[in-house]
């Protein structure tokens, strides 16, 4: 039959070890659930997931050491990059998978969602997000995007007994599948115009050749941009995110928000900065518009939200605008500031949704802002922590939130994008208002004083799991806010080794 010999790729398994640990651990969990006669509690699975995340973190740090000592390299037929950029995302995703189960363990148990399914899906999504950062080939980017997205659709619908959960899952799936289709078409057109799906080859081709009829290439780049903008929920491709965040099970929204943003931005930054820098005069104005719209719409629409999950969803859209500023600056400094912002955002959003989960549970599932009224008296420590995370999102000093905003804005100013810097600062001022409103509601007395004595006002008891998660996120937010040098150096190294 086929007489041709196939050239087999030499696969450097250490280069993709963190991903393999995630997927291997997922298979072990899957087999475990099947073999044991009675399910363990969700806490056991959460613990196992944290162990897998830690193993993956260790192997990511080993890879980081390799890259720092011997420089960046490519593996698996040039499809996987092992450079500072990919290692940054390996470390970040591993860290997210260590922290996220802490917020989910008790919630899933209380909601009656037993079993390891959430943790299995989270590990698959984590492997996808890692590959998004490492992919050096558009086909691998697409595969990673699907590995990341499909588990998230299922996670959104995990609470089968609530109709809102199914609705969130359905909306997320339909819009996500739609955007994936657009993204694949973008890959096809880009391949048609440049003759390669390898990001480095695309960049080399574009720098060597001038394309006489660039319509196909522009269309391809535009469709790629739309695909990514859907995933990171940039305005006007953000419609799904408030509905999905509101409807999804409380305890897992933080993970969904963090991992989707991290994975989406990882590939977004790499594809546009490393493969299409020669087209920057074309896509930069478009990204500018997306960024400005996200900054403004995210902040303004969040003002009118009564549900805190929706408010956080719109504030995430606002954050997406800030992270996009690093791309507009189109400098190593800009990308480094985006990476710093992603790191800060991930832990703040994990903890914010984690606290919303426990407060909503104590208020019979209501995540309205009124559920937080008087929280300062009811559970002062919890209220203080929530205030820290909200103020960090608003950009208060001594938190990573402030430095993250500072770095992206200064990168934009350094690139002479003054207009977007002004828009960003104005939107941050608007955003301060709705974050502070929640803080005020928490610490002001209840409007109806007689409500204090009602039995609902007993303090909220948190389990050790949730405390450990909150503490880890608070440490990441405050320590790197006061002493940011290690993280900044990590983010800078990520872009220095970024070819």
């Amino acid at each position, binding site marked *: 039959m*086929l007489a041709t*010999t*196939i050239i*087999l790729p030499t696969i450097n398994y250490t280069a993709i070890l963190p991903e393999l640990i995630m997927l291997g651990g997922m*298979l072990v969990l899957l*087999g475990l*659930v099947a073999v044991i006669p009675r399910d363990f509690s969700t806490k056991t699975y959460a613990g196992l997931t944290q162990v897998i995340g830690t193993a993956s973190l260790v192997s990511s740090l080993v890879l980081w050491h390799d890259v720092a000592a011997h420089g960046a390299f490519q593996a698996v037929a040039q499809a996987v990059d092992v450079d500072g950029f990919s290692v940054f995302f390996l470390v970040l995703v591993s860290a997210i998978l260590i922290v996220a189960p802490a917020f989910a363990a008790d919630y899933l148990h209380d909601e009656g969602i037993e079993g390891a399914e959430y943790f299995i899906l989270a590990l698959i999504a984590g492997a996808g997000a890692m590959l998004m950062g490492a992919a050096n080939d558009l086909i691998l980017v697409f595969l990673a995007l699907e590995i990341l997205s499909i588990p998230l659709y299922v996670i959104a619908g995990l609470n089968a*007994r609530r109709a809102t959960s199914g609705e969130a899952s359905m909306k997320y799936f339909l819009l996500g599948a739609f955007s994936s289709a657009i993204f694949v078409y973008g890959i096809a057109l880009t391949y048609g115009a440049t003759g390669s799906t390898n990001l480095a080859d695309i960049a080399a081709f574009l720098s060597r050749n001038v394309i006489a009829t660039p319509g196909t290439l522009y269309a391809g780049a535009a469709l790629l941009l739309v695909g990514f903008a859907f995933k990171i929920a940039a305005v006007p491709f953000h419609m799904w995110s408030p509905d999905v965040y509101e409807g999804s099970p409380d305890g897992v929204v933080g993970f969904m928000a963090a991992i989707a943003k991290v994975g989406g931005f990882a590939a977004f930054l790499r594809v546009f900065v490393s493969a299409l820098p020669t087209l920057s005069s074309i896509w930069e104005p478009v990204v500018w518009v997306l960024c400005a719209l996200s900054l403004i719409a995210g902040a303004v629409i969040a003002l009118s939200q009564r549900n805190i999950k929706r408010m956080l969803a719109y504030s995430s859209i606002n954050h997406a605008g800030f992270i996009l500023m690093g791309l507009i600056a189109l400098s190593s400094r800009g990308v480094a500031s985006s990476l710093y912002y992603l790191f800060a955002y991930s832990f703040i959003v994990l903890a914010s949704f984690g606290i919303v989960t426990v407060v909503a549970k104590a208020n019979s599932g209501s995540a309205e802002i009124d559920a937080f009224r008087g929280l300062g008296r009811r559970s002062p420590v919890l209220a203080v922590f929530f205030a820290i995370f909200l103020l960090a999102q608003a950009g208060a000093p001594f938190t990573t939130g402030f430095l993250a905003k500072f770095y992206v804005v200064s990168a934009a100013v350094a690139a002479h994008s003054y207009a977007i810097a002004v828009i960003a600062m104005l939107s941050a001022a608007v955003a301060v208002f709705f974050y502070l409103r929640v803080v005020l509601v928490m610490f002001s007395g209840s409007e109806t004083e007689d409500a204090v004595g009602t039995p609902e006002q007993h303090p909220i008891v948190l389990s050790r799991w949730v405390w450990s998660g909150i503490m880890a996120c608070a440490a990441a937010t405050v320590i790197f806010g006061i002493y940011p040098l290690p993280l900044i150096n990590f983010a800078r190294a990520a872009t220095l080794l970024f070819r």
Partner: protein
Amino acid sequence: MGSLTSYLPIFVLFILGFLFAALSIVASKLLAPKRPTTAKEAPYECGIVPTYELPQRFPVRFYLVAMIFVIFDIEVIFLFPWAVVYNSLGTFGLVEIIVFSLAVFFSFIYLIANGALDWGPIKVQRPASESAPRTTSSTVRRVSSNNEAA
């Protein structure tokens, strides 16, 4: 535009397919004798004559069987091309396909363990108090017995 000529056979095939379908319909309209009987007009020409409306809802287990089918379908789709070029892929291909098969096998085990193939009476895994109270007009389980009376 020269590159588009290579798509000409596909276009011709598309036209031919369309013509074949159109001609078949027209020819059967013109040529076939029309002698309708009640049996011929029934939705299904053979089998038991339906006496009542079938229930619209059916067990979710059918979907699980479909999932098992998809799993093996996908596995076979990957195994076929691998088997064809087995000799040129050598040990590398064998190892890769074993890893792939293991991943598929684990998901199959998971499905079996979750009762995808248990067709016996429904096991009550949670206290029934959380389900909606039964009334005379609406519960899922009474659907079939209700219809027998109708």
